[in-house]
């Protein structure tokens, strides 16, 4: 399998599960968020084995989970709140530097930035459903769509990412819905979530 595509799919899954810190006033009780122990999300992309992320612990919102993808397990940690999802992919796991991935009450045009040296990763809300209009499994759901723009040369971990844009779709109840990943060679991969027990 093409390693670039694997990297792109893996990056998307890592990013979608890379939950991180929250604001102090946000609720982190797992009973009131999607971060309950045992919650899982399944996702897949054409031509790839499906991936699954499962939460294995939640300490006051600090989430630790495992992503199983292509037969390999990857540990992932972070935090999830009632109001949004944050990640620290670009801070290499430094929990003191969260980066907003989505706020469920955000509006079109809301923008978050994360700077690394002279490079700036941006996330901007580009669409918000006013009715249930996005397919998710057998349902139609509302989504908040966030466009992430990654400048060339941005390091993710020890490697330069091969992704330049991701359009995320999130739902306040189901969490991750999909990610359309545009790689630096302009090919795209759509990673779609198809089931979760987070809304049970």
């Amino acid at each position, binding site marked *: 399998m093409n*390693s*670039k595509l694997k*990297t792109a799919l*893996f990056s998307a899954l890592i990013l979608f599960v890379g939950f991180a810190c929250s604001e102090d006033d946000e609720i982190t009780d797992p009973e009131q968020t999607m971060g309950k122990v045992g919650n899982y999300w399944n996702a897949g992309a054409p031509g790839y084995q499906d991936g699954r992320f499962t939460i294995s612990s939640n300490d006051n919102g600090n989430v*630790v989970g495992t992503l199983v993808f*292509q037969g*390999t397990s*990857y*540990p*992932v*940690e972070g935090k999830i709140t009632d109001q949004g999802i944050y990640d*620290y992919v*670009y*801070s*290499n*796991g*430094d*929990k*003191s*530097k*969260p*980066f*907003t991935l989505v706020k469920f009450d955000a509006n079109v045009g809301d923008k*978050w*930035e*994360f*700077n*690394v*040296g*002279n490079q*700036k990763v941006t996330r901007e809300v580009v669409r918000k459903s006013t009715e249930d209009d996005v397919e998710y499994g057998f349902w139609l759901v509302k989504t908040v769509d966030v466009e992430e723009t990654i400048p*060339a*040369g941005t390091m993710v*971990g*020890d*490697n*330069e990412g*091969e992704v330049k844009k991701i359009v995320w779709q999130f739902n306040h109840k189901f969490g991750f819905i999909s990610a359309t990943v545009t*790689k*630096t*060679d302009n090919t795209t991969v759509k990673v779609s979530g198809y089931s979760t027990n987070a809304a049970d």
Partner: protein
Amino acid sequence: MRSHNHIIWYFVLLLFYSCTPGSMNKEDAERSLKVLNSDLVNFGNRMSESTEMKVWAFLLENREAPIPFYKNSNSFISVKNFHFDEMKGIYKWNSLDKKFDLTGHSEQIIILPDSTGKHLLQFIVSDFNSAKVSSGEAFPTSVKIQMKEDDHEIWKLDYLAELADGMPKKIELKMKGKEYTMNSNYLRTKSGENGTLSLTFSFNHLMKTLIDTRLDCTIGYSRQSYFLKTIDINQQLFDHEIKGEVDYASIDPTAEDYTASFNSHSKVFLFEKRKGRIGDVILEGTENNELNDFFVRFKDKSTKQIGEFLPVFDKLMNLKY
């Protein structure tokens, strides 16, 4: 007695500071940066014209070349899923079909990249091992490569790495060309959730040290990786020096005024040896403030983008290797 010591130290410090060249005026500083750029350009040209770099460039561009590395779409060098034992043999470049033909057996990988030149060039991989790091990607743990021209060694590389916790722990790289040597070391330590990282790089041409870099960092550990807390920079580039400290942990990457956060927690200075301080390196917004870039701040507090004086840096960033 103790007060005498204080007095002696006071005079020692006074003497030291009085002998240290001060800050350059803007005109001299700009001239000095142009000299540095010229040194870098000459260095880059000389390296890229060497036989070994031409061979490397050719092999890296060709994804099917029987070597463990390739140039990815971002112009970085990536490691292939490469099995040394399975690839052993003698390969000859077939310029007609644009491929490498396996022409014989060997206990090494011997590549004949050019059959049309006056000299017989050989690119010989005698050892390659890799292990998976936490991202699942292959990371080289041992590499031995040699280049020969008419059976005379013109270039060699020895590389050894140790991994721990799914990440590189120690790397030693030695490279030797006809007139130069290059050495680089990487050492990561871990103590609980904290640790250190040191990186050294030196390039010597004949008997002269052209580049000598040392970065000492303190780091914190996350589940899969590590993140920087502080960086101590000591770099010699020809007749110039870059020195400073960055308190990375205190910089807020999501701050509304990120450049202010960055500049208040970093102190990086440019010097020309024996001539003094050129200026400080700071981060500022470019004209429309959409992007940030590194600027030199001169003695008179005016600033200019580093790229204006050192366009070679932009080229290096594009090459990325």
